[in-house]
């Protein structure tokens, strides 16, 4: 009896200690975190625009503040602020893409008085900015695309009622070639509301395709997806339904295959792999896509090509009417493989995302604190969580 009792108790206790003690976890904090960048100044309103991961593992963030003013921030890899810079009010209306080129970071913005385009380089250590060039004839910049080799800027010419597209040289100091498409009507009111962040924001996008570019912008009395060849000459279009319908996200996959999101009034639709003809003249309504009734169509839709466990996937992010961000992950053939709802109760709005060096994702969101204070937020998703979403673990 004596030994049986002692053995039983010892067995239970040693087993329990073994279970509790044997699991070693090599978790690092930078894998998963949520950060909200707050300010007690209730007058401030932040609208995040773009994020890039820096060489040191941290993040560079471009944001609008108090309307069209510009706010820059650098964080470390855990989301702790390294520096912040509220840019001089002479430079406003940043195009919603941070340019990363040869290890340097740039942003495109507008002169507050002259309404022309400027490009600034950001000092990674201090956050100070240096003017790279001003483009005096390039009014109302709306979108920018850049990779290591090419940079494009889209703008609206308020005099000729044309949407213009320009390819810049590698130093971002001059225009190599330009193209333009007719809007046929003034969209200045729409653009003023867009630029000043006081009204509807349009999803201006430029993407490079295998034989030119595709961009969303004003064309032919509508908000359209327009294809241009490598000489920036018009080849085809999918016209929107006036300004209340059209393509609001587009990611070239290969050849004529694209991941697209389109909107029609309040409705949002996704097709992660559809065939578009760059030389057709068609309407966006004719692109088949699945409806996502819970998503806002007038808030940014973000589409990224990502890798999970070495395999390519397409990630589409939208902001739901139920306050969460919906992350949908598709195979490259367009099959939905997993979804995740991020956030609840407090409104999250997605603005940008970037795949991180640890194969996770960093989401740039806007958070509405206490129901009214718009703040920048970061939600880091780990590679393990991405695997869970697609059912690999």
């Amino acid at each position, binding site marked *: *009896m004596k030994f049986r009792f002692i053995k039983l108790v010892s067995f239970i*206790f040693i087993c329990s200690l073994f279970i509790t003690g044997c699991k070693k976890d090599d978790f690092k904090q930078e894998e998963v975190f949520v950060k909200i960048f707050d300010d007690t*100044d209730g007058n401030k309103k932040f609208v995040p625009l773009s994020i890039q991961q820096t060489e040191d593992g941290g993040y560079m963030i471009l944001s609008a503040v108090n309307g069209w003013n510009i706010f820059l921030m650098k964080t470390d890899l855990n989301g702790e602020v390294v520096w912040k810079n509220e840019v001089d009010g002479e430079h406003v209306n940043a195009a919603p893409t941070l340019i990363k080129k040869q290890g340097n970071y740039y942003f495109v913005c507008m002169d507050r008085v002259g309404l022309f385009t400027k490009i600034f380089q950001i000092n990674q250590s201090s956050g100070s900015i240096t003017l790279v060039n001003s483009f005096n004839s390039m009014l109302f910049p709306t979108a920018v695309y850049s990779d290591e080799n090419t940079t494009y800027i889209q703008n609206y010419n308020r005099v000729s009622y044309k949407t213009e597209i320009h390819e810049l040289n590698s130093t971002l100091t001059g225009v190599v070639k330009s193209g333009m498409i007719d809007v046929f009507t003034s969209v200045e009111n729409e653009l003023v509301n867009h630029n000043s962040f006081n009204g509807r924001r349009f999803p201006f996008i430029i993407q490079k395709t295998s034989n030119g570019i595709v961009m969303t912008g004003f064309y032919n009395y509508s908000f359209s997806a327009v294809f241009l060849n490598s000489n920036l000459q018009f080849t085809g279009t999918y016209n929107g339904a006036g300004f209340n319908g059209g393509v609001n996200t587009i990611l070239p996959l290969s050849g004529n295959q694209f991941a697209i999101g389109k909107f029609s009034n309040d409705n949002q639709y996704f097709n992660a792999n559809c065939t578009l003809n760059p030389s057709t003249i068609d309407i966006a309504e004719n692109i088949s896509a699945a409806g996502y009734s819970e998503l806002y169509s007038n808030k940014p839709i973000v589409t990224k090509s990502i890798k999970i466990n070495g395999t390519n996937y397409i990630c589409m992010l939208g902001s739901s009417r139920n306050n969460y961000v919906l992350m949908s992950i598709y195979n490259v053939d367009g099959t939905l493989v997993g979804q995740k709802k991020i956030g609840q*109760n407090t409104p999250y709005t997605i603005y940008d995302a970037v795949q991180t060096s640890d194969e996770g994702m960093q989401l740039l969101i806007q958070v509405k*604190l206490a129901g009214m204070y718009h703040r920048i937020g970061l939600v880091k998703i780990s590679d393990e969580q991405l695997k869970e979403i697609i059912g690999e673990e």
Partner: protein
Amino acid sequence: MNKQYLLKGILTSLILVFAIANTNAQDYYVYRKNKVFIGIYGGVNFTMPEVIKSYSVINSDNQPGNEKAYTEFSKLKENMSNQFGFYFTYGLSNQFSLVFKPGYHTYRFNYLTSYSWTDTVDFMNTAKEFKHRQNLSYFTLPVLIRWDLAKKRFTPFIQVGGYCDILHQANKSIFTDATIDGTVDHKNNLSETANQSISKHLKTFSAGVVGGIGLSYYAKSFTIGVECNYRYGLMNIFNDRQRFADHTGFTAEYLDVMDQIKLRNIDVQLVLTFPVHPLPDLNILRRSKY
């Protein structure tokens, strides 16, 4: 200051225990060797979390209330919860016993956070104070060696050992009011309340060491006693991977994520046990020869 209070309490209890034991001269001594006792226990406990690393959702230069303010020692009553379970002892000798007391132990701890915003455009100043209350319930498996300091019917004892906890369930309540004054009256109708399970944020297993003192009274066929133990958690209790997973939905709404903590806990409990072996010999008292 907190440690001083604790030390004073323990010393006072020890003196009391020895005083009672020594003033009760009796004709019987307790025969514990090879005896098995089975019983039950129950009581209250007070938790003092030790923050290993603090975490915050908010990154702000000017939100001082963002720092969590854990309940001070002087208000430890707010962290009171309870525990109960079964009590087994086996007498290795007349003085030393092996004690196994599987039970159910609930830990409670609280902290406060507060935030404010000043809006001079819309004159919409906002203040929010949150009281965060956590209740963590574990199945607990403590094993102790108990040293009985006397053989008399009133016997003080000292015990030390270890325990491991297996999580059963955990929940969190957040009480809110709009005045930052270091307190949230959750009985007030003006305060809001939110409740959610936080089980997914916790590790399933935890372990630690435990030590305590007590006093037993041995009757002919049962014993009754009171004991006080200090549980020193050795393991971090929150799962770092789940911290920001926001299973509760509180991350942005209440700007809350859990710190990494280890649990420190004082329990006070009543113990009632019965001898079970050998069955014909239930009387655990023997007449003293002296």
